């Protein structure tokens, strides 16, 4: 079985689903057998989900967040090129 340290090195690929089937199984088995790593993975996943939710629709900035002067400056700059 993998040690916690070995499992930790696979973590990014494991959560991305990017591991070959055998390594994926070894990681899955480790998480099933190790309470500390299972808790770590749970908290780690929560942190990622929370991080993503903090930027839900990251590009949906409200239109007024771009000051009109800035829009005009951008238009003028191109005209002056």
């Amino acid at each position, binding site marked *: 079985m993998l*040690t*916690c*340290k*070995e499992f*930790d090195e696979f*973590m*990014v*690929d494991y959560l*991305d689903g990017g591991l070959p089937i055998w390594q994926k199984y070894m990681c899955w088995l480790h998480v099933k057998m*190790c309470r*500390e*790593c299972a808790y*770590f993975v749970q*908290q*780690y*996943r*929560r*942190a*990622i*989900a*929370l*991080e*993503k*939710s*903090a*930027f*839900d629709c*990251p*590009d*949906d*900035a*409200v*239109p007024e*967040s*771009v000051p009109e002067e*800035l*829009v005009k*400056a*951008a*238009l003028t*700059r*191109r*005209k002056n*090129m």
Partner: protein
Amino acid sequence: MPRGQEITDTAEFFERSASERQQCTDDAEAMLVHSLRKSEDSGYETLVRSYGPQVMAIARRYLRSEVDAADCFQDTFIAVYQSIERFQQRSSFRQWVRGVAVKQCLMRLRRRPRQRQESIEHTLPMFDDRGSRVDVSNPRQKSAIDELLDAEKMRAVVRESIDKLPEDYRLVLLLRDIDGYSTSEAATILGIKLSATKTRLHRARSALKYILEPILGQTGCYVDM
């Protein structure tokens, strides 16, 4: 146009199938690209007004400075305008503009004097001699924030936490988790090896987990696990 007519049109729009709406977006993008290639003033203004909020959001997120974000905003549109011939429709135009904005931000960050970064070593996973995990929980977790944060406050706390990370870690997190680049794309954008990108990403996520531990217990309300 009478108000009732407007509402009917809006309702009709939302009743359209997703593919029809996508077609409308594709057509509008194609017209915009065509207009930019012809150097039309109206095309450039449409570009700045339509994509401005998106570009500004990216610039604020990466640069954390309103002044730099404003400069980057202008640089991005000039870069889009000057390199429009290089847009080859392998991605949507919106996606391409996003990429230009991100690259402009990174160029600007590279020009900034390197600041001393706070160590995150104490937040990283630790192991004993046998390779078993050692608990490195955030001590503040024991006195977790009692007040139940609403969704907006929660977002603010998370954004502030990301801002606290050292630049190298913050950038890989933004590219990979927020802007949706793959790990190998993030490696290319940052100009570092794939293995180094994975290490940075894991360290960044581990540090963020540590910082957020006092509120992670509350996430069940807002995060679909």
